[in-house]
């Protein structure tokens, strides 16, 4: 049997599906008899769902999609593992 302190260490990994099976079983057993840890587990699950739901993707620039499509339509791809393929026109140094 684990205590609340130990359970709190396992909750994040449990929510992420990253907790080893035997630890999962220990956590389940603890949570079944501990309303506080059950509430924390539930809250953390909902938080993850909320981040997934509310995070706004930064849209890719239009020119990027066009550059990719141009590149695949030309088919003559350069060899892999050579770093970025310079289809997007080169830009100045990145902003700090």
């Amino acid at each position, binding site marked *: 049997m684990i205590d609340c302190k130990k359970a709190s260490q396992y909750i994040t990994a449990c929510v992420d599906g990253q907790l080893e099976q035997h630890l999962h079983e220990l956590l389940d057993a603890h949570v079944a008899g501990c309303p506080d840890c059950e509430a924390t587990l539930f*809250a*953390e699950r909902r938080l993850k769902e909320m981040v*997934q*739901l509310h*995070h706004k993707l930064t849209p890719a620039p239009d020119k*990027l999609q066009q550059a*990719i499509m141009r590149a*695949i339509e030309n088919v003559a791809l350069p060899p892999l593992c050579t*770093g970025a393929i310079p289809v997007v026109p080169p830009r100045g140094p990145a902003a700090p």
Partner: protein
Amino acid sequence: MLTDEKQRQKFFRETALPHLNAVYDSAIRLAGNEADAEDLTQTTFLKAYRFIDKFREGTDCKAWLLTILKNTFINQYRKRIRGPVTIELDEEKFPGVKDQPKLVTTIESESGETDLMGMLDEEVEAALGSIGEESRKIVLLSDVDGFSYKEIAEIMGCPVGTVRSRLSRARRALRALLHKYAMQHGILRK
């Protein structure tokens, strides 16, 4: 098997390209700036096109693309662009971060169903923006991109245990911040 080039292009356009924004969004997280993110995204999609025959239809194409993105980043970019790792979560900056707010359990929608989804995008983004860049990044790598702890450790160049503890602290901080918001807006009753 896609034998014809036009067929390959059509399949790629219909299957992979719809995930461009998701890949670019993740690339910005990994690369840290738009120019590198564009290069990284483009390299990812061109590799995906080259290996499109390896993609099994019916499986998760976004996850496949994000794996290519991650590998490309680790192999070609990380050493060049990775900056110092900072952790900004502490009790002084984030009061209540060490507490365990029971945020969601006391939130109820009108139907009586426990629901936290009434939060606004802006509030969640603001909360994510308040916990420090490294913490925000690790939460999004896990929650939005769906990377495993092992993959996040590879991306961030740190041990898996560090990913686990940082993620745990980041979520605690987020819960504290959103708890405050929920109290202010009457979403939380106590």
